[in-house]
């Protein structure tokens, strides 16, 4: 027997070597799978406005696809914010630091970062001017500025009210999300009226207002205080969610949780002293008193895009200023050297990081094709996804497209309209890792 073993020559030292070879091969394999199609030679000047989810992911992919291009990314914000984490912060499950990294952590070498905001875009002479007056000429411009939270559109509201007197705002940022949790925590101890709502504008992650109502309900139940709470959700139109089949499921869940729905209510003013919010409704203004409210303000394009010739010139989005791009190619309909990706794109669906993941390869395809004198073929079908948290520990993995079709990633395995633990694991464990991999251009 001993002789046999010797013949196999698998002594302890040898198998260590074998293991190291195997580990090395694994690492090499992963590198090999990263190898991209051979780079396109170009001298093009590409300017990306915004180093958030979309701008960063695209920059990382372009440096792999192009050789010789001058890629400039413009963003004055030093922090990179993982915004889907705000909901977990506002539920007391993660610290504010969970969502915060540095913008430069994610940018590849080979791109130039201009650390200031873009102030003006002239798409006719193909020039961007920064806040300090620096001029950047481009051959291709990528709008990836995300959107602006317009608290000023709610009379009486300003960001310094967040975290006091029952006012929360999960969207405002990681620290504000933590302050919102502190207010929600007090509310779920003391009781009273919890008021939840959403704006009538387009918004990022349209599920987030609903998630926070569910989370507040759940936390009150865990404390044994649900009986002390009255929960009101003010929907901006007749529906809770734009996708009919999801809307119906949410209606049932709200009924089950005892969350009262007021329809066609759009918040227009708030009186923080009296704790009263005013809503515009088809029957005129209506007041609702609250002890806690999560304010989600109207959203619009940042000034630099809003005040440029790039937004929609007619239709419902003129005032909101979203860039007028083709909904499948994300290419500007009037200025073909301009693309929009992420929240700033004026497309009917898709203001989520999940959509960014699908939009970035489409813009990459059309841009690289244009640089090689060809036409791109990739098409964005409106894919968007929203892990609808229905309580701590459970969520519904809702994915849909432009046509309101459900497009589950794991059909037959993870049911989209079921409250599941695995869907919660997706949100809590897999989402941030997938987002980070996307930022690096690897997912």
């Amino acid at each position, binding site marked *: *027997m001993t002789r046999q073993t010797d013949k*196999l020559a*698998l002594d302890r030292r040898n198998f260590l070597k074998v293991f190291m070879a195997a580990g090395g091969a694994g690492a090499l394999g992963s590198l090999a799978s990263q190898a991209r199609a051979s780079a396109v030679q170009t001298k093009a000047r590409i300017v990306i406005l915004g180093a958030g989810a979309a701008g960063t992911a695209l920059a990382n992919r372009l440096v792999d696809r192009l050789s010789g291009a001058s890629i400039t990314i413009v963003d004055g914000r030093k922090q990179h914010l993982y915004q889907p984490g705000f909901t977990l912060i506002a539920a007391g499950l993660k610290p504010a630091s969970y969502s915060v990294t540095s913008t430069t952590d994610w940018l590849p070498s080979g791109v130039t970062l201009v650390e200031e905001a873009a102030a003006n875009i002239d798409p006719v002479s193909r020039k961007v001017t920064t806040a300090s007056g620096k001029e950047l000429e481009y051959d291709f411009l990528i709008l990836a500025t995300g959107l602006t939270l317009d608290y000023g559109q709610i009379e009486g509201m300003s960001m310094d009210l967040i975290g006091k007197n029952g006012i929360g705002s999960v969207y405002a940022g990681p620290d504000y999300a933590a302050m919102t949790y502190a207010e929600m925590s007090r509310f779920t101890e003391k009781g009273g009226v919890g008021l939840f709502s959403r704006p009538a504008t387009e918004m990022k992650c349209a599920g987030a207002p609903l998630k926070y109502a569910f989370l507040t309900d759940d936390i009150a139940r865990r404390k044994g205080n649900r009986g002390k709470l009255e929960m009101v959700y003010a929907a901006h139109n007749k529906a809770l969610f734009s996708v009919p089949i999801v809307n119906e499921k949410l209606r049932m869940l709200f009924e089950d949780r005892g969350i009262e729905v007021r329809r066609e209510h759009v918040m227009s003013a708030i009186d923080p002293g009296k704790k009263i919010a005013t809503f515009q409704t088809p029957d005129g203004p209506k007041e609702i008193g609250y002890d806690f409210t999560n304010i989600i303000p109207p959203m619009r394009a940042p000034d630099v895009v809003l005040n440029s010739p790039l937004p929609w010139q007619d239709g419902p989005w003129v005032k909101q200023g979203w860039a007028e791009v083709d909904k499948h190619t994300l290419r500007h309909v009037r200025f073909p050297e301009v693309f929009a990706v992420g929240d700033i794109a004026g497309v009917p669906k898709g203001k989520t990081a999940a959509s960014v993941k699908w939009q970035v390869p489409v813009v990459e395809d059309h841009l690289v094709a244009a640089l090689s004198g060809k036409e791109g073929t990739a098409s964005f079908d409106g894919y968007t996804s929203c892990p609808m948290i229905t309580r701590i520990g459970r969520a519904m993995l809702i994915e849909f497209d432009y046509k309101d079709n459900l497009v589950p990633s794991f059909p037959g395995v993870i*049911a989209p309209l079921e409250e599941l*633990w695995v869907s919660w694991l997706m949100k809590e464990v897999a989402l*941030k890792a997938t987002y980070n*991999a996307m930022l690096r251009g690897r997912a």
Partner: protein
Amino acid sequence: MKELTPGMMIAVFEEMFGMGLFWALVAGAVLVTLAFLFVVLRDRKLVASRLVRAELLAPIGAIAAILFVQFVTSSGFSDIGGPVDVIALILIGVAGAGGLTVLAYVLQGLLGNRAGKAS
């Protein structure tokens, strides 16, 4: 999610655990597997007494794996909501049970007696 390629899975796991820890875990798994093969090939059989002793640890591995996942994810048994959740729970348990069994077998094989003298 778009297409789920192996390269993307690796990228996601690297982000989840951190580059160093992820590859250390992969290395650990490969190491234990190779050690297991080594012990089995060396002895030219599975030693029943060792296997039985190792298998006694399986339920502990299963429970530990499940509790670990619940611990790192602010969730618990009451969050099981559908069949796929039960399947996920079982898979996590099986992974924990299998992992600890193999590890225990390997440790006995490497540190303990040789096959002939075992039991």
